[in-house]
């Protein structure tokens, strides 16, 4: 549905996007993750045909965005970073105008505007002027505008920016719904958003793609070894010795020692689940097992891990599961 090949964009001496390639299939929700200034917006602007790339190609629905801009744009709904609203227009007039320039046939126009407003929950402000809306409503009017012509591809630049928590949940729900029959690309720097809504994540930093994978795989991939967090009501030395003796355990660290309760970080060999053995070893000695949980690297940690290191060393593993 969307294909980006070796995209590069230079602004004079500054390279904003550097050899970015990725694909998104129909029905997929692709998260575009990166710190501010990483090149997310630039990539999206190239995809929507707003600006041409310095090198490389972008395809939407099989149409080259540069060669066949009208065909590609007809299939794209785009919500820019700042919703492009005309302050003097009412919401309904604005959406009607957008429907016209997006080529929605006259007969369907009223209906499309109506359904778009219902989906984004802005029907109650239909008669208000766009310039007088709150940030949350502006954002949703912008989203309604992107949905109007029922495009195959939706490109959303920070769709939840400026929304309150309830609206964020609603918008994420809407995006998930849309993912069924649309291809969605959304950019964000809010990490939980990605793990909650996206099937796949492209992490981009300084214009380069540092990882492409599903949120779960990314977490697993960076884990390397399995680490468990255990809390035992026994002294550190005794319990430590017992845990070290469990087959498959490679390392045991005392994380915290508080009176009679000790917390351990237990590392084991990759792919080997030692939870059963660990709990048995503790309980058999008559100690209490207060907590046992696998420690996962949160998306935050992965993100920091990937974006703070140099790009050369940022992919500790070959991106085998990455570029599909």
């Amino acid at each position, binding site marked *: 549905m969307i294909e980006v090949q070796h995209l590069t*964009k230079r*602004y004079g001496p500054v390279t904003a996007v550097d050899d970015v390639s990725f694909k998104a299939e129909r029905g997929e929700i692709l998260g575009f993750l990166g710190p501010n200034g990483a090149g997310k917006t*630039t990539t999206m*602007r190239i995809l*929507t*045909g*707003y*600006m*041409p790339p310095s090198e490389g190609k972008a395809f939407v629905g099989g149409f080259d965005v540069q060669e066949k*801009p*009208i*065909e590609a*744009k*007809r299939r*794209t709904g*785009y919500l*820019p970073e*700042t919703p*492009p*609203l*005309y*302050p*003097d*227009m009412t919401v309904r*007039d604005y959406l009607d*105008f*957008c429907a*016209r*320039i*997006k*080529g929605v046939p006259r007969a369907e126009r009223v209906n499309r505007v109506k359904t778009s407003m219902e989906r984004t929950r802005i029907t109650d402000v239909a008669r208000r002027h766009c310039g007088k809306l709150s940030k949350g409503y502006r954002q949703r009017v912008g989203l309604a*505008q992107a949905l109007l012509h029922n495009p195959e591809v939706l490109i959303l630049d920070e769709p939840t920016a400026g929304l309150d928590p309830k609206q964020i949940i609603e918008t994420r729900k809407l995006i998930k719904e849309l993912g069924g029959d649309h291809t969605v690309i959304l950019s964000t720097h809010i990490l939980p958003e990605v793990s909650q809504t996206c099937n796949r994540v492209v992490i981009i930093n300084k214009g380069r793609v540092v990882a492409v994978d599903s949120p779960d795989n990314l977490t697993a991939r960076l884990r390397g070894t399995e680490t468990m967090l255990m809390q035992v009501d026994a002294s550190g030395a005794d319990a430590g010795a017992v845990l070290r003796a469990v087959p498959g355990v490679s390392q045991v660290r005392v994380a915290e020692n508080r009176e009679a309760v000790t917390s351990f970080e237990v590392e084991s060999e990759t792919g080997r689940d030692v939870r059963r053995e660990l709990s048995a070893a503790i309980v058999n000695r008559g100690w209490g097992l207060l907590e046992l949980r696998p420690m996962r690297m949160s998306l935050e940690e992965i993100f920091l891990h990937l974006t703070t290191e140099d790009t050369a060393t940022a992919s500790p593993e070959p991106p085998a599961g990455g570029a599909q």
Partner: protein
Amino acid sequence: MSNVLAIAQKELKGYFASPIAYVVIGLFALVFGFFYYIGVAYFIEQSMRMMGMQGGPTQNVNEQVIRPLILNASVILLFVLPMITMRTYSEEKRSGTIELLLTSPLTDFQIIMGKFLGAMALYAAMLAVTLVHIAVLFALGTPEWKPVATSYLGLLLMGGTFIAIGLLISSFTKNQIVAVMGTFAVVLLGWIINWASTLAGPTGREILDYLGMTNHLEDFTRGIIDTKHVIYYVSLITFALFLTARSVDSERWRG
């Protein structure tokens, strides 16, 4: 075509949703009315005097009222039309709505034509208001209608040129003040450039006279439609709109 119309309508509605349309039409009508009053009052005084003299040269409403009025109107337009075009592109660039237009399935040509026609429609409405004055002359006297028609055609062409230039300059900047001053400077120069022709040599004089934007209007006010002048205005409009297209396109590359 429906895309062009959609944008033209949006532009026209935009003028009337903001104070711009009312200010521009109001100012133009006010100053036009002032010139009209002076012209008619002077004409009546002259006529009275001629009647007292028993058979001087016959008085001509077309020559003595309408023609000077149209020429004066062209000078008012110099000030007023840049205000119509100042926001066409500047405002869209400043507020980011240009992103909506450029990512919709529209060609640059459609966007530019839509904006041009929207501004022309407002300009036509401005001129329509002045027809009330002319209608009064027709009600009280017997002027010829043909020179009036050609005068208004000339005004439309000349105003179209100002508007096309205004669009071009507006596409250069995010700042409306810069757009309005830039446009004003260019069209003002187009008015006064042939003042220098008296100083220039015979060839220079011809060139300067040809370049002047307002002196091409004079034949229209005499009731003459000379293709020379039509071509002058139409080619200037086309050229300015073409440059606007290039300017919008280059903006894309610069980002």
